[in-house]
């Protein structure tokens, strides 16, 4: 109870609340600009959080990500350009509703269901995380090794359309983590005599490069202006919410369950939760033919899944130190830089931090209703910011942010190189999220792998002999084999059709 009160005191500090309000403005603005993602918003924020205490830093990240994810719905509904990948699942429905003159309902459902989904996800986080942390205290290096493998596998196989390319991206990230002094023997590897490389490739400049610089390159090379919104005036967005909720309450709850279930998987993330929730909604709908043509049902389920998953992503991050998404990967990077290794021991050593994080989720989701309303009303002003001014400003921000980590231009070099690699990868269908997750998990994976090898004397049976390690191993290997099963199934269907 003392830890809870201490957590509440930390969150309701005027400075922290001010940071959260500023982060809300920032997250809403970035999320509402077509092409700028929630991940990019958080990546740009990281250099600033580096100078904050843990609670305001976490508050800023949580608020920014929640606001940006919701705000992605606005350009989706008004311009048919989803602001974030998670909003992409139901953009056609929201846009077609706007064309029919129902923008208020599409956006109102977006903000209210997002906030409600976020609150339910937060409740699950509060209940599940401490319980799982108790279990995690008994984990050995074998369990952590398999958890890291599972996180990477989910990111590579489940969270991308191309599992092969996802796996290559993941291995590239792991290969990058071999640069620098190795975790056990302290031996320099692949540093080529460059002193700055002894510390390895900094995760923050890498994140800025992958998520911001590659996007700036893409936008500056496209130089297209956004089409005008089909309906500029938006009336009362809360008008028919009650009616929609009474009609689709089951879809709302199912969306939450899917979002939380997918979000809590290490490495899967909430974006994929929204897509799966939309697909499930269509599959079990009484009117699947209406989906994609301006139907609210799929929006209710997917937008709830979005924000519920956002909270659930923090479960593996806080409990095991294994990120559930790119955003929580960044959070782990920030906490490690502050000298705190996320994991079950944080629940024992810094319980106030955990409770503070929980409370922050509730505050951020309540703030979302007010700021969401504000953002919808002022959307046309956000659109008026010329890309030609915004992109150079963000680029300077990226340069300073990468420099600020070690006060060295080497960070800027890392940012540029990773930005170019990410640009080429994305142009050719290689997802970049597995690369970043691998860069965060690389050290954890290597440390637990080598320690387990030393403990077991290289005996592979020891890796699976403990019950939880065995279960995690089976799940991980099953996910590895999923693409092969899917390919065999498609082949069998094709052969059957040919016969």
């Amino acid at each position: 109870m003392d830890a809870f009160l201490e957590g509440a005191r930390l969150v309701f500090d005027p400075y922290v609340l001010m940071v959260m309000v500023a982060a809300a403005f920032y997250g809403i603005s970035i999320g509402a600009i077509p092409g700028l993602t929630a991940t990019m918003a958080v990546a740009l924020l990281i250099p600033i959080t580096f100078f904050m205490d843990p609670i305001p830093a976490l508050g800023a990240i949580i608020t920014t990500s929640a606001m940006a994810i919701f705000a992605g719905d606005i350009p989706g509904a008004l311009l048919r350009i989803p602001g974030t990948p998670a909003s992409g699942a139901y953009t056609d429905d929201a846009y077609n509703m706007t064309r029919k003159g129902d923008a208020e309902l599409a956006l109102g459902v977006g903000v209210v269901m997002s906030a409600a989904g976020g609150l339910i996800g937060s409740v699950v986080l509060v209940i599940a995380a401490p319980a799982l942390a108790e279990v995690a205290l008994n984990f050995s290096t074998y369990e952590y090794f398999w958890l890291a493998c599972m996180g990477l596998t989910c990111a590579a196989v489940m969270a991308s359309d191309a599992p092969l390319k996802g796996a290559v991206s993941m291995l590239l990230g792991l290969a990058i983590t071999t640069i620098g002094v190795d975790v056990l023997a302290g031996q320099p590897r692949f540093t080529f005599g460059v002193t700055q490389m002894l510390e390895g490739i900094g995760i923050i400049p890498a994140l800025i490069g992958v998520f911001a610089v590659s996007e700036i390159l893409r936008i500056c090379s496209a130089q297209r202006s956004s089409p005008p919104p089909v309906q500029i005036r938006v009336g009362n967005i809360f008008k028919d919410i009650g009616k929609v909720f009474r009609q689709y309450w089951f879809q709302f709850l199912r969306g939450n369950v899917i979002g939380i279930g997918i979000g809590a998987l290490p490495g899967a993330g909430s974006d994929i939760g929204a897509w799966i929730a939309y697909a499930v909604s269509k599959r079990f709908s009484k009117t699947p033919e209406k989906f994609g043509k301006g139907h609210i049902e799929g929006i209710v389920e997917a937008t709830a899944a979005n924000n519920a998953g956002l909270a659930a992503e923090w479960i593996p991050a806080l409990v095991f130190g294994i990120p559930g998404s790119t955003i929580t990967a960044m959070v782990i990077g920030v906490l490690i830089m502050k000298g705190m290794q996320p994991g079950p021991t944080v629940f024992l050593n810094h319980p106030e931090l955990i409770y503070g994080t929980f409370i922050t989720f509730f505050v951020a989701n309540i703030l979302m209703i007010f700021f969401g309303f504000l953002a919808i009303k002022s959307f046309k002003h956000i659109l008026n910011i010329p890309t030609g001014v915004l992109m150079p400003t963000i680029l300077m921000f990226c340069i300073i942010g990468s420099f600020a980590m070690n006060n060295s231009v080497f960070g800027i070099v890392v940012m540029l190189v990773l930005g170019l690699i990410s640009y080429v990868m994305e142009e050719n269908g290689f997802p970049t999220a597995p690369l970043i997750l691998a860069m965060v998990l690389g050290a954890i994976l290597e440390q637990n792998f080598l320690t387990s090898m030393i403990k077991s004397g290289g005996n592979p049976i020891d890796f699976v002999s403990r019950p939880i390690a065995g279960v995690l191993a089976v799940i991980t290997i099953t996910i590895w084999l999923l693409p092969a099963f899917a390919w065999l199934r498609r082949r069998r269907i094709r052969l059957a059709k040919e016969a």
Partner: protein
Amino acid sequence: MKINDAIFGVFFLLLAAALFVGALSMPKIHGLAYGPSLYPMVISIAFVPLAIGLIVSGLSKWRSGPPIEISDWVRSPRQLIGFCAVIASVLFYILAAEYLGFWITSVLILTCLIGWLWRKIWVSLGLAVVITAVLHVFFYTFLFVPLPWGVLKPISW
């Protein structure tokens, strides 16, 4: 720029070979059965089947299109310059910021980029000064990031 998967496959195969050879040359640590070379070796071996998969996938599409397909925007000088200007700006900052200082480097970069992308040259200079001032106050004054002064050192605060 779309590149055939087979080319990526060959690149990753070469990367795996380099990683493996690099790991082989690492010294053995006395008393440690598994040294710093093991992990890079495992990664390099894991790369091989995936790289072969990319080569197979790429070869199956080899005849349906050119191995390297240049994107449409590369043919537009305006868009190509926009792309190159971003890279050139970062390189310019890396090379010049220490000597010219943050203020001059940032104003030059922002003026050129905003001028090119927004097509309003004079407004871009004013905006560049304002944005640079805001960034400097925020990062240098509030967050104590030691942004370089360069030639403006005599008038630094």
